[in-house]
């Protein structure tokens, strides 16, 4: 299994440029996973021991709201899903739901955190890449927040 995982992980933008040792370690922390449409991939509040690289399919971030269960963001093939593993207290901040059948890599977060601690250079690079992803998400979320399509008389909009 690891032999087919490694070249794929090596090619992913999240891990590009890392040396062979790091790639080996990451590969050892990774496994293939599958979800069926409708599966709850992660649950808010539970320990976030992993994050995902989607290979096929779509995962949505779901939250309960006064209007019912809402999907606030989706991720597709190539996307990285989950940053909760990197930020204390390392619990999921939201639910993740498979909107279709999904094939993904699951990367063991605890394993990778240890590597970040022991190898600061590796850790800093991971931080940079994840913080970019989070910054992009934040910017996208802000655009969603200001309700750009909102009706003009909609004074309840924030």
């Amino acid at each position, binding site marked *: 299994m690891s032999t087919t995982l490694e070249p794929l992980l090596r090619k992913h933008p999240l891990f590009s440029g890392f040396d062979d040792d790091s790639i080996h370690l990451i590969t050892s922390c990774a496994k293939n996973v599958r979800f069926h449409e409708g599966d709850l991939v992660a649950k808010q509040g539970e320990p976030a021991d992993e994050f995902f690289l989607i290979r096929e399919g779509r995962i949505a971030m779901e939250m309960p709201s006064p209007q019912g269960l809402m999907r*606030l963001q989706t991720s597709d093939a190539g996307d990285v899903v989950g940053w909760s593993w990197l930020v204390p207290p390392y619990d999921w901040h939201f639910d993740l739901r498979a909107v279709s059948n999904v094939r993904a890599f699951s990367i063991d977060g605890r394993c990778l955190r240890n590597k970040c601690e022991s190898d600061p250079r590796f850790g800093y690079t991971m931080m940079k890449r994840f913080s970019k992803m989070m910054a992009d998400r934040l910017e996208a979320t802000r655009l969603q927040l200001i309700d750009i399509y909102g009706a003009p008389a909609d004074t309840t909009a924030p």
Partner: protein
Amino acid sequence: MSSVLHPPDASALQAGSMLPEPWVVVSRLEENADTFTIELRPAEEGTLRPFAPGQFNMLYAFGTGESAISISGSPENSDTRVHTIRRVGTVTSALDRLAPGDTIGLRGPFGSAWPIEELPGRDLVFVAGGIGLAPLRPAILHALAHRKDYGRIVILAGARSPEDLIFHDELLEWKEEPDVEVKLTVDRAGIDWYHHVGVVTTLIPQADFDPANAVAMVCGPEIMMRFTAVELNKNGLPDSRLFVTLERNMKCAVGICGHCQFGPEFICRDGPVFRYDHIHHWFSQREV
């Protein structure tokens, strides 16, 4: 790349262009909670002028006023003119109350057009936000009607929620076409939505087009167009191959009342379609 196509010699800029003509409502359709589409034909035979995709008409609700509304129907239609209108004020609410058979005043068509006829051989990327899909629709319909003239066709449409997405059925039809890529996204959805959720710019990196040859046509709220331009630039598309359509308060539609000015441009006459590099300087300022 030549500059924005100037509309065909059909704009009503001769003397008396402040005078509406009587037109009749043929049909009316509810698109979503605050948007409707009306189809109009001239009250007098033989007065239908051709229009170019991106142009608009001034629609007059008797005694109430006029509103600038983009034409949202096919340019090949030689019988009627279709307009998709969002209820945002007194005039649009008055237009909302019209039923088939009612008369309406119309002046137009006015303004510049999407350069769709100058683009054979190119990949086309349409990015629409909210009701922005309406002014793009005539260009999309033209492209689909002349499919083999163009390279890849990508349609990215965003809306606030699934209920707000206009032309939903038609988008799904276009999605079925084998050589058209359609991606839909909403800002928020319930659990019966299986497409994307997120702002429309997030669809751009995933879209399949050749940035070295593609032309993008973008329409939506100003902030959405700004962010879309940034994302398109990041994905290799320069401002000179990016067209947007702007909107401002209009009274005359012929470049005289001064209301629609945007920097040096009169949106009614120099626009509403602009090549992005021509207006970027002013577009990146606040409160212009």
